[in-house]
């Protein structure tokens, strides 16, 4: 049983996974950092080292500020809504009502659908005049709103889609956590005279805190990397009102073919996401485990 692999064979076996990791993760990451310090090559002049010039341009970029604001608003809007909705759905399907199996399925369905397909469905919903949303508003006498076509409503409309899409997945996490809350803790609180609302806020919700933090951090990360339904539904418009960070990077890099600035923005995004991940692992993890 205690046979040792020859050292040479060990290296050979490691080469394949390592080369994949290097080729698709480490090399691009390093290359992005390097690219962000060089300017773009053109047919007339080669790329040249420019130091932090790209970063200076980034700080002065008004459009980036708008995109970051959008991403921030998007996070602030979707996270509480998704948490509220997913906890409510989890409580509902965790109860003893008949038909909870069907409810679980229907709540989870949006998560299983591909985002591009979902985006197309919602395009129909939002279509001015003929869409479901317009028809419902007309039925109660409200004027038609061009949800995706006006700067005031496009971001909010994107947020509704994201909440609808994400809540089902988060519900699964909450459902698992809810089933892990010991019955006798709820019994103990009930015996002390706590009603159902009190039991929820005093006992159940605090015990769901690790899940809430996990869900919140994931939703936050999603808010910065979301791209699919923006490409399908609004292309960031009108007037960049629904552009998020990753979409902006995509635009800069592949539409405007400004690879140097694209790399700079990518470094910014990786730094942001890295900071979030560090916050989750080091700060919150330590504060949420009671035992």
């Amino acid at each position, binding site marked *: 049983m205690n046979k040792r692999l020859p050292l040479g064979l060990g290296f050979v076996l490691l080469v394949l996974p390592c080369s994949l990791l290097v080729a698709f993760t480490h090399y691009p990451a390093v290359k992005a950092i390097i690219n962000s310090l060089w300017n773009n090559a053109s047919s007339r002049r080669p790329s040249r080292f420019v130091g932090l010039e790209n970063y200076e341009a980034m700080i002065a970029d008004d459009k980036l500020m708008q995109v970051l604001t959008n991403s921030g608003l998007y996070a602030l809007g979707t996270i509480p809504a998704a948490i509220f909705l997913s906890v409510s759905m989890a409580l509902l399907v965790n109860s003893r009502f008949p038909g909870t199996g069907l409810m679980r399925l229907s709540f989870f369905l949006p998560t299983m659908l591909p985002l591009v397909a979902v985006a197309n469905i919602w395009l129909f919903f939002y279509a001015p005049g003929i869409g479901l949303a317009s028809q419902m508003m007309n039925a109660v006498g409200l004027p038609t709103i061009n949800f995706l076509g006006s700067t005031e409503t496009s971001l909010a409309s994107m947020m509704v889609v994201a909440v609808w899409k994400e809540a089902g997945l988060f519900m699964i996490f909450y459902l698992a956590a809810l089933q892990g809350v010991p019955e006798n*803790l709820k*019994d*103990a*609180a009930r*015996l*002390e005279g*706590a009603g159902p609302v009190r039991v929820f806020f005093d006992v159940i919700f605090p*015990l769901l*805190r690790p899940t809430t933090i996990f869900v919140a951090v994931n939703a936050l990360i999603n808010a910065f990397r979301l791209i699919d339904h923006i490409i399908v539904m609004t292309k960031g418009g009108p007037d960049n009102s629904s552009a998020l960070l990753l979409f902006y990077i995509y635009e800069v890099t592949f539409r405007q073919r400004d690879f140097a600035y694209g790399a700079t923005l990518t470094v910014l995004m990786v730094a942001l996401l890295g900071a979030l991940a560090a916050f989750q692992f080091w700060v919150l993890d330590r504060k949420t485990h*009671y035992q």
Partner: protein
Amino acid sequence: MSKSGASLEVRNLHKSWGQVEVLKAVDFDINAGGFLTLLGPSGCGKSTLLRLICGLDEVSGGEILIDGQVVTGKAAAERNLGMVFQNYALFPHMTIEENIAYGLKIRKVPTAEKKKQLDRVADLMALGPLLNRRPGQLSGGQQQRVALARVLVSGRPLVLMDEPLSNLDAKLRVEIRSEIRSLNKKLGITIVYVTHDQSEALSMSDRIVLMNAGEVAQIGTPEELYERPANTFSATFIGTPPTNIIDSSEVEYPADLNIAGGHDVKDCLFGIRPECIGFPTTDKNLRVKARVKSVEYEGKVFLIHLETAAGTSIVQSYSGPSVPQYGEEVTLGWAREHTHMFSKKDGRVITVSR
């Protein structure tokens, strides 16, 4: 604020889960300030019974009275009782202080009064230095004390305990056992205690309700249950090692052994406690021949495991000289007054006329 306890009465209580009847016509009562134990093997319905009393589950039939008042339809919180759960059920996200004062907080007890009550029980249960910790930082015994404190802080006259000692090690169990007993006496609160451990029940209770398969097998003081088992279940459940049950056909008994109620000795099972079995001294003794299968040294006594020709196992708890050896065939004997006689038909006790 040591209030006296409340009496409890359970009348003809039934509970079914769907088609399964888990409690069948349970009746018992306990006086204010008493210590009642619900004893039985796992699955006999004792924990279900406790949940019915405290109002966490609804009864299927019958009545529960606390201090003479019917509480059957009332919510758990309105029954004025406390409960200690098997795994303590401490809230892991609250400090010990918040845990203990949780009920007071819900009932909006004024801060000064809350502080007074908290100090009282923290003092009583020796929890002072632990008040700012969380349950996860406490040992099992300390958590148990917190659970008791949480129940005592409200001054509830009736306290239910669901196997509160089962997660503790043996030494701590004995300590907390006597602690619970002294709280019962000192504060005068009524305690209903659930356990499957017969020695715990014997040592703590004023009264024991022995349960088997959803029915009451016997109710009585510990002495009554030990000395006058009402049926073979009671005889074999109480006592370590349990009572030996031997078919009368295997036993040589004096011809003048009479039983009340016109029963024939041939239709009887004999029950004898291991410590009552010796070797025959007079011809009045009942006797049985058996072969020694093994001998265990227990310190004070030897436990001798024997088997009769018909294959009945017998345990003898023996402390005399010349311990029988493995494989030896011996004649065991015991006095008539130590013999419990049970009907072969239903296992109920038959009174011996002595």
